[in-house]
């Protein structure tokens, strides 16, 4: 037995080597370099400057307001989906899930399309786009937890004479509290570090820390200022992350789903009205910006035109952008899935390794994509390690950003495999590799597809690291879109919207793939119960 354990922990250690090396080289080393350079020739004058305070303050308050609005919009949707069974429910659930998986630059572009140009460079546009980006996600998170509340609890309270509001405040809210808090933290972090949306909608006057890093490094030429901001950013997100894991780990995600669904048929006009309003509102809010992209890809101030779409098919520039993006997505997928398999498998063998992997794969979340891009650019710039022009750099950076997600899709499935299954296999004489191949792999196969799909989706839409690492000869779709939009000319604008539409279609297709193959997420479990 003890021998077996040593064997397992050795395997675990071996498996962690590859992911560790990659994270070490492409995340930790660049960030350490940024920290090192910043603290070596420290110039805190920038930190004292009013500009920076203003940017940090703006970043914070817009994230707070965005979070509140996203949750307010999510509440009615979560309520309806968790409590009623109604016509079009699946449609509402899947549609509201779309914004969250859209590339952030596309969300920015969508709101450029849907809002009048007087609102383009305002905090309002930014906050609305952030709310759009996150409300569906928030609705799912809270709705799923809500679904897990046993309906008999409600019935019991009602029988004891509780009014609906009392039921809500004494039963529902306390149970949902943790999930609401968790969701808020995640949404806040996402809005705090949001990049694509701000680049599109904020403009130079509405800068967040993330866009200011780009602005300083790539436009002003103030790399040390950018690095200092990057340090500030990492410290803030790092502490947020610590806080959120403190809260998060205790959440009863595995709370058993009730055997009886709490979704009931709608039995009154008032309820029908509420549910109808909420779901139509949600559908309208979700689809309007996407339709705006489509419309703007077909219309200039002069009228209807197919020119934008025609040039997607004919222009070598745009065509090259498309193929570059797809090649990078494939590369990202290969690297991320391979690393994720190693990392996830390692977690199965012993707990210390599992804890290590969890920290390791959280690092790319704490380090924003912009910081990864900047770090790589200023770190791997001296021969013989000058990787700034390497075609492999972007898929690698994208894979680092996708890794946390890919690992989190595979790990729970692997961990759900009962230990006796593996023990039986090894008792019957299978070695570790055979056991993995015959037990783990068949079970985990479907989640590998999901992990691959999410990695590809991350790569297709990735904008932060790309805006540092992309070069003239390898522009990806998001970079092309931002460049087209920054130039005057109606046709260029329609091209940008057409490319955005393509990104929307592929993101939706990929998320559909994930939904079909990932049968382990609570969402799907709840859906299959219903």
């Amino acid at each position, binding site marked *: 037995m003890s021998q077996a354990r040593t064997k397992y922990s050795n395997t675990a250690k071996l498996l962690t080597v590859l992911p560790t090396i990659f994270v070490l080289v492409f995340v930790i080393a660049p960030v350490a370099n940024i920290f090192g350079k910043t603290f070596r020739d420290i110039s805190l004058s920038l930190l004292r400057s009013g500009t920076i305070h203003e940017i940090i303050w703006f970043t914070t308050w817009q994230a707070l307001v965005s979070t509140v609005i996203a949750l307010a919009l999510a509440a009615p949707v979560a309520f309806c989906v968790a409590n009623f069974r109604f016509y079009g429910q699946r449609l509402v659930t899947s549609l509201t899930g779309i914004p969250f998986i859209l590339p952030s630059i596309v969300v920015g572009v969508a709101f450029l399309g849907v809002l009048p140009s007087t609102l383009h460079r305002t905090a309002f546009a930014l906050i609305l786009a952030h709310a759009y980006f996150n409300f569906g996600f928030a609705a799912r998170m809270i709705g799923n937890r809500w679904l897990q509340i046993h309906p008999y609890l409600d019935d019991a309270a009602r029988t004891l004479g509780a009014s609906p509001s009392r039921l809500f405040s004494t039963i529902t809210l306390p149970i949902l509290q943790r999930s609401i808090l968790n969701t808020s933290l995640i949404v806040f972090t996402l809005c705090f570090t949001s990049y694509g949306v701000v680049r599109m909608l904020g403009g*130079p006057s509405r800068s967040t820390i993330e866009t200011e890093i780009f602005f300083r490094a790539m436009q002003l030429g103030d790399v040390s200022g950018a690095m200092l901001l990057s340090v500030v950013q990492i410290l803030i997100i790092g502490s947020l992350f610590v806080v959120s894991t403190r809260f998060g780990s205790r959440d009863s995600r595995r709370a058993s789903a009730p055997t009886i669904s709490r979704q009931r048929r709608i039995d009154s006009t008032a309820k029908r009205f509420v549910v109808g309003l909420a779901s139509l509102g949600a559908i309208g809010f979700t689809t309007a910006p996407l339709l705006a992209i489509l419309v703007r890809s077909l219309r200039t101030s002069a009228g209807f035109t197919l020119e934008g779409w025609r040039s997607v098919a004919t222009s070598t520039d745009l065509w090259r952008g498309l193929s570059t993006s797809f090649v990078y997505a494939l*590369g990202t997928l290969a690297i991320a899935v391979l690393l994720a398999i190693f990392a996830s498998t390692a977690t199965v063998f012993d707990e210390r390794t599992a804890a290590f992997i969890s920290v390791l794969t959280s690092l790319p979340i704490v380090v924003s994509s912009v910081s990864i891009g900047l770090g790589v650019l200023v770190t791997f710039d001296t021969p013989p390690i000058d990787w700034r022009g390497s075609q492999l750099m972007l898929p690698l950076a994208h894979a680092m950003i996708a890794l946390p997600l890919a690992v989190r899709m595979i790990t729970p499935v692997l961990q759900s495999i009962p230990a006796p299954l593996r023990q039986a296999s090894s008792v019957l004489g299978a070695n570790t590799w055979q056991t993995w191949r015959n037990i783990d792999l068949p079970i985990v196969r479907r989640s590998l597809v999901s992990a691959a799909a999410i990695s590809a989706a991350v790569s297709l839409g990735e904008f932060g690291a790309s805006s540092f690492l992309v070069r003239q000869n390898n522009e990806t779709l998001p970079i092309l879109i931002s460049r087209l939009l920054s130039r005057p000319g109606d046709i260029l604008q329609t091209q940008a919207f057409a490319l955005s539409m393509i990104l929307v279609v592929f993101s939706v297709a990929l998320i559909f793939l994930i939904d079909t193959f990932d049968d382990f997420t609570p969402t799907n479990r709840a859906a299959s119960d219903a």
Partner: protein
Amino acid sequence: MNRTKTRVGLLLTVGALIFGACNTGRSTERNDATGDSTDQDQTAGSTAPVTLKLLAYDSFTPSANIFDDFTAQTGIKVEVVLGGDAGELVTRAALTAGNPEADILWGVDNTLLSRALTARIFLPYETKNIANLDEQAQALVPNNEATPVDTGDVCINYDVNWFNQRNIAPPLTLRALTSSNYASLLVVPSPIASSPGLAFLLATIAEFGEDGWGEYWKSLKQNGALIVGDWTTAYYTEFSGSSGKGDRPIVVSYASSPPAEMIFASPRPATAPTAVAALTCFRQVEFAGILRGTKREREAQQLIDYLTDVKFQEDLPLTLFVYPANNKAKLPDDFVRYSLRPESPLQLDPDLIARNLLMWLDQFTNIVLR
């Protein structure tokens, strides 16, 4: 059994993909490190024609077939890559110094030169045309760190008809722009990414001094000046005197913009539709250079010679609307007739620019953009 085989096969493919990719990555590294030897390989077995990449700002629009002669003479092809405004080009070039995105960069001007030289983005080269190049421009690069290719002046331009119709006198000085007569009439390309924008900022610093320009910009902003991202947007979209027919009759552009409006108008108007306020001009010198890290240094040198030679230089006035840096180049009559060469343009010491540029841009961002 078959299924496991395919699965192992899949894994192997993925593995091969990654390792294969790593290997190509490494081999390009080796090319970089020993650039010289690969250069020789390429020229030794050179049946494939060399293509040079020339990176330039968006408004780099010489005559369509201008490089045909060069290709005919040398067998080297030229691919022009447009990469945004000049400021952005230089910043990117600084971040990619030693591992460049192209072989030659066109369009670093004297306002950005210090940034380019500090980052060592260029390989020095003394062109064979050096004896004919503008001496004042040469003086900015005493060690041939870059090669001057053209000069021009950035000035306030105004829409003549707009002011005539309303019977308002056009603004003639920088100070005048803060007067309520000209409220909400001015559009300026941002100095952060645009080189005429930066030249204009430096003009105001030259005029009002290091202590006074901040106040000046505050009043400009209060007076409704519009700051846009780049020169193309400012001139062709917002300015009323150009093809875009925007709303604003005053714009920061070049001293050579009025001749451009005349020469390309058909039918040609009796009087120039736009004019320049000569007292607001700032002298701009543009440079080209060989990007350090290129694998085609020798070919790039040939291209620098071509860019400074008479044929290419004579193409510049009517395509880029700048003055050639080569004194031997003849100016087209129309260009001479309609353009204005300010006698004493505003100037700033390049060293002063080098020391303070970042701080000024930061202050500008604070004052104007937030």
